[in-house]
């Protein structure tokens, strides 16, 4: 080897050694200071939780209010001193329903945003939204030991206690909703041709399964892709609607997000097609659905007359929770500026408040000191009957689904729903579970929350 070769290698080796020394010394300073809390995300004064939600993009119309409403509950409770002395810090990250780039505000994917939350660290993810997005992070959260609580979706995927012991749903499942819809359709339109359009993931599949289990077999079933919907700006559902029309379907069941509901109603308008619409609770909120039509100058909502489902009291009902909800939202001037007793309390706000209260009550029941394991134990052994929902919230070690009933609603305008018969129906997710009507359960507000 020549002198030059030796020189070069010597230079390289020295630099390498110097740098490694640098790094080792530097990192020893940092590692000395690192001390993680025993339960990640929990300190004596604060508990940090997080969620990935669609703040922008196709699913944001309406859905972007849910986490805000839940946060309003947390802010309200924090002002009263928190739960067991701890304030709740809620971090929401925009995952744009995991359709990044399509009308999204440059947000990251669900996985990337979830990883950001994990690095915070969070005690658990609470209230992340979306069937498909949340399906993707189950094993990621499990492998990092992070509970995935109150997923905002009615899919049955959250009810797998053996595979995912830390995974919990909250709302009444699409399957159960479908069975209740089927009961209504069989009673009200026994001889009509029914068609079904669902989202091309477990949202649509579970809804259809429920419909079929309840005794309604649609003569035509179609599934739409969310990506295609966004790329075609709603035109991709047009052919499905046209097909339903030529099949002479007079009842159409939709398991769609509000953006897709809008596309379907718009296509039907263009074709002059007006069947009886039956729309899943998550896609029927009158305010969210009417918004784009209102903007285009349409006087009445094309959704008027549609049947839907709700597991929370309607905003016109006499439940004592409704004025409480208004109080909480009015108090949150940062997120809901100008909200007062005459503002519209829509379904998405109620949804957020519904599970927000559930979380706060679970936190209270967990006590002053808890770990992730002890918290989950409390969840599966307590019945929460004092939450805004119409039926009590109950989990067991073999059932992580959540609520199991609600009542049928009818859209009366671009802003309101009323109940169809006021009866609360409950069922289960077995293929042939009977739909029963329960007594109205009194779910007063716990005193410490008032």
């Amino acid at each position: 080897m020549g002198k030059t070769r030796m020189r070069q290698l010597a230079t390289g080796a020295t630099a390498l050694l110097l740098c490694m020394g640098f790094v080792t010394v530097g990192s020893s300073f940092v590692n000395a200071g690192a001390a993680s809390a025993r339960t990640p995300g929990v300190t004596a004064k604060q508990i940090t939780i997080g969620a990935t939600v669609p703040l922008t993009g196709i699913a944001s119309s309406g859905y972007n209010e849910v986490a805000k409403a839940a946060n309003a509950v947390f802010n309200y409770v924090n002002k009263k001193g928190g739960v067991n002395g701890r304030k709740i810090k809620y971090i929401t990250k925009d995952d744009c329903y995991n359709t990044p780039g399509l009308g999204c505000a440059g947000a990251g994917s669900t996985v990337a945003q979830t990883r950001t939350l994990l690095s915070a660290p969070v005690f658990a993810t609470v209230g992340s939204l979306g069937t498909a997005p949340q399906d993707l992070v189950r094993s990621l959260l499990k492998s990092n030991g992070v509970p995935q609580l109150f997923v905002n979706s009615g899919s049955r995927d959250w009810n797998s206690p053996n595979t995912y012991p830390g995974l919990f749903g909250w709302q009444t499942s699409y399957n159960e909703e479908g069975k209740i819809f089927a009961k209504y359709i069989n009673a009200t339109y026994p001889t009509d041709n029914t068609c079904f359009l669902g989202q091309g993931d477990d949202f649509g599949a579970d809804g259809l399964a429920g419909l079929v289990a309840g005794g309604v077999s649609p003569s035509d079933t179609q599934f739409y892709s969310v990506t295609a919907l966004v790329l075609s700006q709603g035109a991709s559902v047009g052919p499905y609607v046209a097909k339903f029309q030529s099949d002479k379907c007079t009842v159409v069941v939709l398991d769609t997000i509000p953006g897709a509901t809008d596309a379907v109603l718009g296509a039907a308008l263009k074709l002059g097609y007006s069947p009886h619409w039956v729309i899943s609770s998550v896609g029927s909120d009158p305010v969210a659905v009417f918004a784009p039509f209102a903007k285009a100058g349409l006087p009445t909502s094309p959704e008027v007359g549609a049947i839907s489902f709700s597991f929370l009291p309607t905003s016109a009902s006499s439940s004592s929770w409704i004025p409480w909800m208004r109080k909480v939202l009015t108090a949150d001037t940062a997120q809901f500026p100008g909200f007062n007793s005459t503002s519209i309390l829509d379904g998405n706000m109620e949804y957020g408040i519904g599970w927000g209260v559930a979380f706060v009550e679970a936190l209270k029941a967990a006590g002053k000191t808890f770990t992730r394991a002890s918290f989950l134990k409390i969840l599966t052994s307590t019945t929460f009957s004092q939450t805004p929902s119409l039926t009590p919230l109950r989990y067991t070690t073999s059932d992580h689904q959540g609520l199991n009933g609600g009542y049928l609603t009818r859209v009366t305008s671009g802003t309101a729903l009323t109940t169809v018969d006021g009866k609360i129906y409950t069922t289960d997710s077995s293929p042939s579970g009977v739909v029963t009507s329960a007594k109205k359960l009194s779910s007063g507000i716990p005193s410490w929350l008032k």
Partner: protein
Amino acid sequence: MNWTRLKRREVLSTILIAVAVAITSLTTSSVRDGVAIGVMVAVAIIGIATLTANGLRATHPVLARAALTVVVLDVSLFATYFFSAITNFNLAIGAAMSIVLLGLSFLTGASGQISLGNGAFMGVGALIMGMWANHHTSTPIFITLLIAVAGGAFVGLLLGLPATRLRGPYLAGMTLAFAVAFTAIVNSFSSWTGADAGLQLPTAVTPPHWLSDFFSSQTTLLTVNSMWLADITILVTGVAFFFMANLFASRTGRTMRLIRDNDVAAELVGISLPRARVIAFMVSSAYAALGGALWTLINNSVSPSTYSLALSITILSLVVIGGIGTISGALIGGVIYAYSTNVISWFTAHTGINPQGNLANQLPGIIFGGLLIVTMLFAPMGIVGALRRLWSKRRARTAG
């Protein structure tokens, strides 16, 4: 030997190191990360400066490349121990992307064909990894990666065959159509591919027990898991780059370059044009599929919507900006991809732009597109090409 030239090279290296450390400490989340990444970049520069010197490269080229690969891998793997979970994650994503960039760089630079569909080829590899892992949970990771690569090469063959007769704009258009059709193809086989919703890996990739036992109980699972993912990715990246470096220099690589520069002459010499073009296409799609499969591992899931036309365009932009037909260009592109969001958010924070506003959200796109235009107009050979030109100008000046 010329002592002044050597001294200059060392001084330049030291300055580059200082600059790299400064830039990275400004844009990463902690000082520790800044120092650690700065070290990594610095050593890479030194290693290249040392090993690309005269002598070793001419007499023992494969050995020189292997030595370089080993040095870089060694330092990188050592460094991942010190990085935070987020940095390791970004590193892994960037390394996987650099594999994809390398494939496209080869296609465009070495054989003169253009492809706007490499995002879709990434998606092919990513989906194969996801589908295989869901149906055959016991296959070792590296085998599944190879299966994904084979799948990517196969799809590259399917598209490369019609592509052989196409000139520039038509080829670009055909690959663009493939990129746009990719989602539709995935949705058509929804029962296997999970359609729109995507697939998760049923069990996340976690390090073996003997490795995780190295860490104290204070270290979170997240840190350990991220480090492991970064290590796997870096290892695979090193191997992929080593193969490509040898391919560039081999007879096949020379054949490709001849076709790019003068295809009529190549034909006269007896080279089969369609065959060479198809091989180049398959290599680039195989590399893209490998990058996509790695992304599935890192993200623990695959979402078809990730592999959109926008991604294909990003890949092309990074190849152009890094330097078409160069290996270091692909590395630079990978680093840019991994840290572009950090740099841009640093930029918006320091220039008073509202981070929630429309401008901030569109800034990555505007900057990328702008860079693409500017690079192609004023420095068509990218960063590496521009640096090389500067280097050779200085050389000419000192020699003459």
